[in-house]
């Protein structure tokens, strides 16, 4: 199995994580790598937009509430640039009311922190199937 993973290394789809919370930026990439993805983590939406990952990212895991440009702001900006990257929102605000609007705008899923690895996996599968 390890051999297979190694040989397919170059092919691994890129998942980008954008979250201002450091513990998420530390923990989530490790789990995503365990899932078999290539991962890049960014502390802000602006940082992601100026990186070279916008075109390569197959799925964006995006925090909603961030200082400066928020998650939904980034969603709009990507739409404006016609970069339709599947987005999985994550939020620590236990508020379900934001979810329908985000899905309407094209988000794949909106996960409430803390979320389980299976829920995350399911959301990623949906995102990549859409891609």
């Amino acid at each position, binding site marked *: 199995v390890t051999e297979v993973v190694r040989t397919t290394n170059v092919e691994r789809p890129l998942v980008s994580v954008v979250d201002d919370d450091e513990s998420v930026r530390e923990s989530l990439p490790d*789990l995503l790598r365990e899932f078999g993805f290539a991962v890049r983590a960014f502390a802000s939406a602006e940082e992601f937009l100026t990186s070279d990952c916008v075109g390569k990212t197959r799925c964006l895991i995006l925090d909603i509430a961030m200082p400066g440009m*928020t998650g939904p702001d980034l969603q709009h900006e990507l739409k404006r640039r016609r970069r339709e990257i599947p987005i999985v929102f994550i939020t*620590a605000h236990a508020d379900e009311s934001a979810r329908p609007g985000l899905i309407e705008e094209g988000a794949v899923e909106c996960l409430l922190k803390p979320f389980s690895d299976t829920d995350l996996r399911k959301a990623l599968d949906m995102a990549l199937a859409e891609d």
Partner: protein
Amino acid sequence: MEASLENPAEQIKRLQRCINDLVSVLALAATWADAEPSQVVGAVTDALLRMLDLDLVFVRLTNPTGDAPIKIIRIGPSQKSTTDARIVSEAIDGWFGDNPQKWPPLVQIPIGGRGVSIAPLQLWLQGEKTLIAVGSQRPDFPSQTERLLFSVAANQVAIGLQKARLLTEQKRIADELDERVAERTGELAAANEELRNEIAERKRAEEELRDTQSKLAHMTRLMTIGQLTASIAHEVNQPLAGIITNANTCLRMLAAQPPNIEGAKETARRTIRDGNRASEVIKRLRALFSKKDPSLEPVDLNEATREVIALSLSKLQGNRVILRTELADGLPNVSGDRVQLQQVILNLIQNGSDAMSSIDDRPRDMLVKTERDGHEALCLTVRDVGVGFSEEDGGRLFDAFYTTKGDGMGIGLSVSRSIVERHGGRMWTAGNEGPGVSFSFSVPLLPEQKTDADTTARAGGPRSMERQSK
């Protein structure tokens, strides 16, 4: 002169008759008790006619109330059948008009073909002009004795009439009084009823007000709790997300072939760190809510402010607010209810943040500042660079239900101020030199922490009082 023409026996007899008549006339008054004026006049005319052997008596009584005068005429039995009383009455009435000074002392009126001498008598009754006219066919009429008797009778009538008038007046007054008492009693009863209704209405309004106020206070508490709950959830969910993700990763690393021990160790360490972080949040919340005594306690204003800021931070970041704090060092404790004061601080910070949500042409700077306010109080100020408010708004900001926000309830500031005032403090607002406004409140220090100058003043108090009491 008249008397000298009679013989002595005749004279004595006449005098006796005169005395009898006098007594009779004087006795008349006794029968007039409780009588009406017209009854008195009727009685006296009858008596004069009978006793003095007159041919006619006419009385004209001017009614003091301004009604038509009462006129009574009595004709003696000798003339009664042949005389028209109405014509005689009119004739006498014509001779003796309204002005007694113009009355002739004696007039002759033909009655039944013979002249009748008629003499007027005037009754002086408090401005009234009452006429009594007596007439007789006798050529010597009226004799001296008759004049005396007439004047006595007239006096008696005057007295009787006065009494009767008085009585009537008393009766009238008593009746009027009764009527007025009844009327007033009715009015009072109505006023009483109205007052009772007003009291009931006011009571009801007061109850309604109290009810509304308690609902309001409850609503504000719920809102604040709701906002706090959201902050708490966010603060706890962040580290929990880390913990669960790390633990999942850790399991996966251990389950791999071969197990990734170094990776698993790293994720386990991060799990512990995030766990500690979550427990820090809980500890802070505990500090925020633990309240041993609802009464006033020493509160470290800076500490209380830091806790509120920690809880509001994510919301402020979400609204792109750049928060700066200037918490003065070495501040003494204030006296207060920690949670309530924190609600006030939270409210001011949220208001400032809301006021800046539409500001995009400048950084959304917020300053939270604590400092001394004189010797006996501390002051906290929250300054924003938001939309501010008009002068008109400024006067009403602290009114309940008054709001300048599109989605506000207009409760926060009014409740905040009432909390501050319950602490013996005050709350005010001021426009900044630049854009935005500053909201401040000050609360008194704990009594023992007031300045030394105050302590000496208090210590001097009892001594000077002792001196005064000696």
